[in-house]
């Protein structure tokens, strides 16, 4: 309807075990448009990976909705789900778990093309070889090496990226896509993804690396305990963070001539309400009620009572 690649509304996901349930996502609202890159940023356990997986229907929503490429996932038959997913690329977090270890690098990179039945074996290999070269794995001797025996973590991750790009996705979901790259390769990998978004691909990237997100994504959504607490254009979120958690994240980032500051310690907070209140130095009595994510300025959404009052 809206031409969005992804639109989640109030998306919640719970995981159950004999020892209790965990709500990994609590009412997340996320939109990604064609050609746009959105980075979801947050610490471990904030729900980034679950958001990506739920967006592809790999885990089921316990509440809320996911519209992927304009289709409501709750109403999709499994056949339609498969065809929707084929239009998307997915880079999982762990390249050791997602790249077939017994294949050689070239077969691993071309496997999705062959499974989807797009083109001959020769065409698939040629395309995969081109992608591997673009990703800095251009040595044909390396292509014939088995993934398990000869590829480092960083190289496997680049094979995983080649797989995700091999079907020219309209929408790419990337979970820490550069986590195993050193600083120089990280910039290369991000530049490759950016070339795709400039041609119209949408990108949803999960990362705990806020400087990386700010440098490469158009928009940033800061997540905390399963909810989006702040969203907006990267430059404004990083330059003028409005949520106290975003401010703490930015104060903790090291840099030249920048002293890193750990968050202030606060007394216990037994009241529930805002998920960040137990760590928030700026909380007030009103925070006993959880604040919703609402616009405080054009294109700036914040889930904090104080930011809203200050923003007006």
């Amino acid at each position, binding site marked *: 309807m809206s031409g969005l690649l992804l639109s989640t509304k109030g998306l919640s996901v719970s995981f159950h075990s004999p020892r209790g349930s965990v709500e990994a996502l609590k009412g997340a609202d996320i939109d990604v448009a064609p050609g746009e890159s959105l980075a979801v940023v947050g610490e471990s356990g904030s729900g980034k990976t679950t958001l990506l997986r739920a967006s592809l229907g790999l885990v089921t929503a316990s509440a809320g909705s996911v519209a992927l490429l304009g289709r409501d996932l709750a109403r999709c038959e499994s056949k339609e789900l498969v065809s929707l997913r084929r239009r998307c690329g997915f880079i999982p977090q762990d390249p050791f778990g997602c790249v077939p270890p017994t294949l050689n690098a070239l077969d691993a990179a071309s496997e999705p093309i062959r499974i989807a039945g797009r083109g001959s074996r020769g065409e698939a290999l040629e395309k995969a070889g081109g992608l591997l070269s673009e990703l800095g794995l251009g040595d044909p001797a390396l292509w014939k090496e088995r993934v398990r025996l000869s590829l480092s973590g960083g190289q496997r991750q680049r094979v995983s990226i080649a797989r995700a790009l091999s079907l020219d996705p309209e929408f790419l979901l990337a979970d820490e896509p550069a986590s195993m790259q050193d*600083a120089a390769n*990280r910039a290369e990998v991000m530049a490759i993804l950016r070339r795709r978004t400039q041609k119209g691909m949408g990108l949803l990237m999960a990362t705990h690396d806020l400087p990386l997100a700010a440098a490469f994504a158009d928009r940033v959504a800061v997540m905390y305990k399963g909810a989006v607490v702040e969203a907006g254009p990267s430059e404004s979120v990083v330059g003028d963070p409005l949520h106290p958690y975003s401010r703490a994240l930015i104060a903790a980032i*090291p840099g*030249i001539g920048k002293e890193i*500051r750990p968050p202030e310690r606060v007394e216990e907070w037994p009241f529930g309400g805002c998920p960040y209140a137990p760590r928030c130095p700026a909380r007030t009595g009103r925070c006993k009620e959880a604040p919703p994510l609402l616009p405080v300025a054009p294109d700036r959404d914040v889930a904090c009572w104080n930011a809203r009052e200050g923003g007006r």
Partner: protein
Amino acid sequence: MIAIRDLSVTYRTAARSVPAVRGVSLDVPRGRVTAVVGESGGGKSSLVYGILRLLPPGTELSGSIDFDGMELTRASEERMREFRWKKAALVTQGAMNSLTPVLTVGYQVAEVLRVRLGMAGDEARERAVELLAMTNLPAGYARKYPHELSGGEKQRAVISMAVACSPEFLVADEPTSALDVITQAEVIATLVRMVREKGMGLLLVTHDLPLAFSVSDEMAVMHEGRLVERGTPARIATYPSHDHTRTLLSAFGLTARTGP
């Protein structure tokens, strides 16, 4: 001061020898943060394990490491055991996973005091609580088990153990690489406080250039086993003299960003 001169570390196997550190000279003074930065494989960790003589058997260590007149490269194993913990303590990236899951955190800190300093049980237990408090872990934490602590709390508990014998130096090898930025800030603030308040020397080894720029008084850049550049963070940020330093800086987006 730990004065390192022309230090080389060469790993040997039956088939070949791999030089990891090649002729590095570096002073690590007390009361200051000295950061060693570089890519993985650049020799940073080998330098650290060379200083503490924790290299695998058969590894060749040459050059000199002078610690207050003691030559560490030739010191007996017994004297090295005294040097580690009491003079220079090590905090590693995976240190938080080195805690025993079946004993309380307080017991493990007290154990260091009993074994290394011969302290009596009660006194060691009390002192353990003080040491945990120094790293901002409140009194109740002594009775907790490692699984009840977050990653950052465990790393801070390990720092409590490292400073238990009041060492003059802390050697930290990627102490925060497994942590998110907020937790990293808490752990780094703890380490820096040890330097500022207790006058310890901190040798911080990290691949995280921005982190080194934030906390160090002096930086050393390693590349392919050699120390290619040394200076204050301000000088290195403004006038990097070695190509590899410039490469590292631009890789971290720390110079004018080129292209989109």
